[in-house]
């Protein structure tokens, strides 16, 4: 179990929490502004419909996606779990090659970086992810991974590791990082990205605000896209709707700065109409499509976990997340992160990483573009925990009280005093 006392008092949580709370109202205002020309209820309804259909018809849509991508000279590999995905990726990435990567939750999920750091020159190109990489920290949010790292720590690390002296100024730091990373992208042999959406008609959609993904996916000779089966939707139009929602709820903007759509290897037929593959884009594009527990989620009726578009809007208002950040969940954070943990690392790991932290306050649901009822999912998973004899000591005592005296307090209550253990709610 996480040492909550220590986590609550830690500097990283203090900094992260301050950033979250300070920026939250701004974000809400921006989100509202970005919805100005959008029929939000209609968009939400359409998104729900798209995701529901996609999950119900996943096998067929997956086959179609793979077929369409392969026809356009994109290699596709399927991986049933993280280990298999790592194996496929490492086979595609020869030792010693220079690798750059953009933000991808699925790449984190399969713990690929750990392996790459041992055998390749590896650089994160998302500004936040780069800060995480050099400070050897852990990311704490899917969209804003480094909000818990103080400025001083960033400048100290850059000074120590790169001998560059920078003031504690966000703009100066960002520009230094930009210049450093840009050079790394130009030198790279292989670019790794994730994907926000795959459309079964053959499109790979990758959103970004920084501009790194366009470069990572175009400049190196090889592009590897690591993503998961729940990202598949039927059509290009559906994918665009998800991109729009991800921008609104993820960053509070009406559109992301860039939407990359990749549907084939770069090509030309300008010389006497002879089709030649591999022009200015990479010469080889591969997609690794992972399952890693997702089919089980569907089979067991936890499809809501897969409706998520990873915008992270559920996290900022979450009372638990605000106070312990990434310690609530594992590869994915918050209540949904706990749900993912249960199916990817097992019920016991879910239990250890916050299955009982959720206050069921529903602020997450209130903020979710997909209306995902995370507290309901958590409560269902708690039922599973109880059936598997995973109980907290406190709950087990509460249940003794209920079973013997019909109320959760039993004989423990003294008149006029609020007891330490408020077994209720």
């Amino acid at each position, binding site marked *: 179990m996480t040492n909550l006392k220590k986590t*609550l008092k830690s500097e990283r949580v203090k900094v992260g929490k301050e950033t979250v709370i300070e920026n939250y109202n701004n974000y809400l205002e921006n989100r509202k502004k970005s919805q100005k020309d959008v029929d939000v209820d209609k968009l939400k309804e359409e998104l729900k419909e798209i995701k529901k259909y996609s999950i119900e018809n996943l096998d067929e849509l997956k086959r179609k996606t793979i077929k369409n991508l392969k026809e356009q000279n994109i290699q596709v590999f399927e991986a049933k779990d993280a280990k298999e995905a790592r194996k496929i990726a490492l086979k595609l990435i020869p030792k010693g090659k220079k690798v750059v990567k953009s933000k991808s939750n699925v790449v984190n999920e399969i713990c690929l970086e750990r392996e790459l750091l041992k055998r390749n020159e590896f650089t994160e190109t998302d500004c936040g992810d780069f800060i995480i990489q050099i400070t050897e920290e852990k990311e704490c949010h899917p969209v804003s991974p480094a909000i818990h790292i103080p400025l001083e720590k960033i400048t100290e690390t850059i000074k120590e590791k790169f001998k560059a002296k920078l003031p504690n100024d966000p703009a100066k730091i960002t520009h230094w990082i930009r210049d450093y990373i840009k050079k790394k992208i130009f030198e790279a042999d292989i670019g790794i990205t994730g994907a926000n959406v795959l459309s079964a008609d053959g499109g790979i959609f990758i959103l970004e605000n920084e501009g790194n993904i366009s470069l990572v996916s175009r400049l190196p000779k090889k592009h590897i896209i690591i993503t998961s089966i729940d990202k598949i939707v039927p059509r290009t139009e559906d994918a665009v709707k998800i991109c729009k929602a991800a921008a609104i709820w993820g960053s509070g903007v009406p559109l992301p700065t860039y939407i990359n759509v990749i549907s084939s290897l770069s090509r030309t037929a300008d010389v006497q109409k002879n089709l030649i593959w591999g022009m200015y884009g990479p010469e080889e594009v591969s997609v690794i499509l992972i399952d890693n527990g997702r089919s089980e989620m569907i089979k067991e009726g936890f499809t809501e976990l897969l409706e998520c578009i990873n915008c992270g809007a559920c996290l900022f208002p979450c*009372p638990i997340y605000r106070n312990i950040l990434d310690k609530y969940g594992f590869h994915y954070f918050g209540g949904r992160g706990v749900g993912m943990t249960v199916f990817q690392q097992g019920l016991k790991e879910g239990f250890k990483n916050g299955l009982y932290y*959720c206050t069921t*306050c529903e602020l997450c649901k209130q903020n979710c573009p997909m209306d995902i009822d995370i507290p309901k999912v958590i*409560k269902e998973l708690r039922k599973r925990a109880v059936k598997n004899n995973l109980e907290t000591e406190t709950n087990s005592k509460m249940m003794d009280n209920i079973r013997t005296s019909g109320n*959760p307090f039993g004989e423990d209550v003294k008149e006029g005093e*609020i007891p330490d253990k408020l077994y209720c*709610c």
Partner: protein
Amino acid sequence: MGIFDKIMGGNTLYYPGCMVKFVMKNLQDNYEEILRKSGIDFIKLNDLEACCGSPVLNAGYERDFKTLAKKNLDIFKKHAVKKIITSCPACYKTFNKDYRELIGEEWDVEVEHVTQTIYKALRKGKLKIKNPEKRTKLTYHDPCHLGRHSGIYEEPRKILEKLGYEIVDMKSSKEGALCCGGGGGVRSNFSELSNAITKDLLEEAEDTKTTVLVTTCPMCDACFLQGAKNSKMNVKELSELIIEKLE
């Protein structure tokens, strides 16, 4: 309500809920007095009552929840309970939503949160209050079970206004109200975490520049009372403010 109506229409039960009955006992006395003065003819079941099952369901004990629901259904049937008035938002949500979902049509009990009852009584002039002398500012916390879970935001606010208070909403209120730190078993299981959440809310309350934080949930009330030891806020449960102003 005459004896005939009672038989035909059934009884109205005031269900305080375990938090009020065992921990925040003064609130039970308050609400009973307010209901009586509102002209509500209600019964009490005292020791016959069992937990509604909210903490049991939240903790994942499905079988025990079903047992409790069955037990309560039987007790209510035996006492011809046709309507429940409860002062606990968690019990309200459990009876109104979870019981309906679990039991289906057999659960034909009307469920009311006490703020709905009181607001009706105030509007109809059945509950009389002293004319407010001046409008005092305070802030109101929407309990999750009452607000987001049940959509009741207006009644408590309107009651407070009728009592002569001016509500200054916190930065996060109504649909976006913060959690008190007490929900889902977090208070009993992870007290440090719960305290940290309570502190976050108390800080937002302080930001309103008012000095009184009022809520209408015994769990929120208990969390705030414990947390307020280090806060400027004076914590009140709605009934305490009503009692002060009863004629």
